[in-house]
């Protein structure tokens, strides 16, 4: 019970499926994880593995034909899955905020920055325009935007991508949320800006004790930022644990494949290892381990669903044949 109280968010057996004409797409298929206050969880996986849908499920923003089929989303001890929309609206942007991938697309092109910031404040608090504007100005200064007064009156197209993402982050943090879901917020940015944004997000979380879920396909990015990592594949979390453990001693062949495809200094000149094949279509996915078709270690056992095991304290794994080389050594 004491652990539950410390966790800002606990997700248990969450399933979000899309009921399309071609069949049921099991975008999120029974995942469980938790994030504590002040903690950063890296949710890693390839495009289309269901990591963004996980984020939208938490916010209650899954559009038809998709819906949450089962599972619990406990936010500060309260199950918010299937809450009436007005209750969810009060949480959204106030207690749980989200940062999106492409800063060019997330700010409304026809509304000024101040309008978009002030409305986020006034949707949740009874404050007058002047007070809200003051808070917006402070929020812009807090994310390191020079001359915030002038930026407030700008339209999004007048600002650079990095600047826009800073504004999106300022909006996400403006009501001091308890949880921030960041959906690949650095993917669309230059490498130098990426580092700045990473640093900024980390600092904001640390200062305010906000829990954060950092969704990305880039293990290099998340290993510098996250406390724990959950690796997602085809709608499921295949491996989960503290960041050092996952990076230094990956157990799932997929995690190992992901790590092998990250360029590094000591591998200069050598071909990058790549995972053969591509993410399977999530429509009518056959049973068993979804990764077996791309896995060098797959055996007959992999035709049935691998159970969730706990190979070490704080680690979780779904694999029959884990890469135990380092563990044995």
């Amino acid at each position, binding site marked *: 019970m004491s652990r539950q109280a410390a966790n800002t968010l606990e997700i248990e057996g969450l399933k979000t499926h899309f009921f399309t004409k071609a069949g049921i797409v099991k975008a999120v298929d029974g995942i469980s994880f938790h994030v504590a206050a002040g903690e950063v969880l890296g949710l890693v996986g390839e495009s289309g593995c269901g990591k963004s849908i996980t984020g*939208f499920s938490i*916010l209650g*923003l899954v559009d038809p034909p998709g819906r949450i089929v089962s599972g619990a989303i406990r936010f500060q001890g309260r199950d918010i899955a299937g809450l009436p*929309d007005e209750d969810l*609206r*009060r*949480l*959204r*942007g*106030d207690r749980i*905020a*989200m940062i*999106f*991938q*492409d800063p060019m*697309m*997330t*700010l*409304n*092109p*026809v*509304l*000024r920055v101040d309008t978009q910031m002030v*409305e*986020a404040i006034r*949707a*949740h608090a009874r404050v007058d325009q002047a007070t809200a504007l003051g808070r917006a100005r402070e929020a812009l200064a807090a994310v390191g935007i020079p001359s915030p007064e002038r930026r407030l009156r700008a*339209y999004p*197209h*007048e600002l650079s991508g990095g600047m826009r993402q800073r504004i*999106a982050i300022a*909006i996400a943090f403006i009501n001091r949320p308890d949880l921030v879901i960041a959906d690949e917020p650095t993917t669309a940015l230059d490498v130098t800006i990426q580092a700045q944004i990473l640093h900024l997000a980390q600092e904001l979380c640390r200062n305010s004790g906000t829990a954060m879920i950092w969704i990305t396909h880039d293990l290099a990015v998340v290993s510098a930022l996250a406390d724990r990592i959950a690796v997602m594949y085809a709608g499921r979390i295949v491996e989960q644990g503290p960041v050092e453990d996952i990076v230094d001693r990956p157990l799932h062949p997929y995690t190992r494949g992901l790590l092998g495809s990250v360029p590094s200094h000591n591998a200069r000149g050598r071909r990058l290892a790549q995972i053969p094949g591509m993410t399977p279509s999530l429509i009518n996915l056959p049973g068993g381990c979804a990764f077996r078709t791309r896995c060098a270690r797959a055996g007959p056992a992999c035709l049935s669903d691998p159970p969730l095991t706990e190979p070490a304290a704080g680690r979780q794994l779904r694999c029959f044949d884990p890469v135990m080389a380092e563990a044995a050594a």
Partner: protein
Amino acid sequence: MTAFILRRLMQSAAVVAIMSLIVFFGVHVVGDPVYLLINPMADQKEIEEAIRALGLDRPIWEQYWHFLAGALEGDLGRSFVFGEPALKVIVQRMPATLELAFAALMMAILLGIPLGLYAGLYPDRLASRTIMAGSIVGFSLPTFWVGILLIMVFAVMLGWLPSTGRGETATVLGLTSSLFTLDGLSHILLPAFNLALLKISLVIRLTRAGAREAIHQDYIKFARAKGLSGRRVIGVHLLKNIMIPVVTVLGLEFGGLVAFSVVTETIFAWPGMGRLLISSIQSLDRPVIVAYLLIIVLMFVAINLLVDVLYSVLDPRVRLGEKSA
């Protein structure tokens, strides 16, 4: 912005000049008005006198030159039929046409945008499918046929609404219009709807397409993630983006409404410019035809300019483009 407007004004002047040339010579190709105006019993001498009085004995380029000189001073010639300046004859009938076009425009906005928005937000509902099917019908049916049908149903069979004329008018703030009296409103309802039907359908389709596209944009999802109410997300974030193409098209279509009113005014005996044009063509009243067409051209040019300016107000990205240009 000023340079832009100046450039546009010069382009507009060229358009008007070329248009006047085409209209003036075009009208002179169709028929000789003298034989329509004159007493059929008149002898040759009387006919020649009439031709000279109307200035029709001169070569056509000289007539055009004469017309152009007059036009620059605001004189577009005298109507053969009314014996009054053509401009005055038209301007007298202009308020009736403008109020009809205005009423039709209002109908297009007030019916088209909500219906299109509904169809765009809930595309799978039966009501939405009905709206879209209705808009196709509105698009396809010819205006004159719908007008006659409206008269048959609402004026003849049901007897709810009058079918001809403008009804009572009243003057409010110096504007005389039938929009200000109940009787006038009942008169304008049928013709305005007849004129608006095409535009309503157009606005429905534009709004629906815009909503379908915008609803999947990240900025809408971000607005929802901020915890804004559904009303604000739709009414501000979505609608303001959709309005850009709708305003552009509607602005341009206002000119079309005035021009199209020729058919509607004829069917509903609406005493406006459109009906004047038809009767002027029948009596080959050249100055009135030329003046009418020139006024319409001027109006289109003015509306185009206005829409461009309005467009830049709605879409901040256009403003920047103009500054850097």
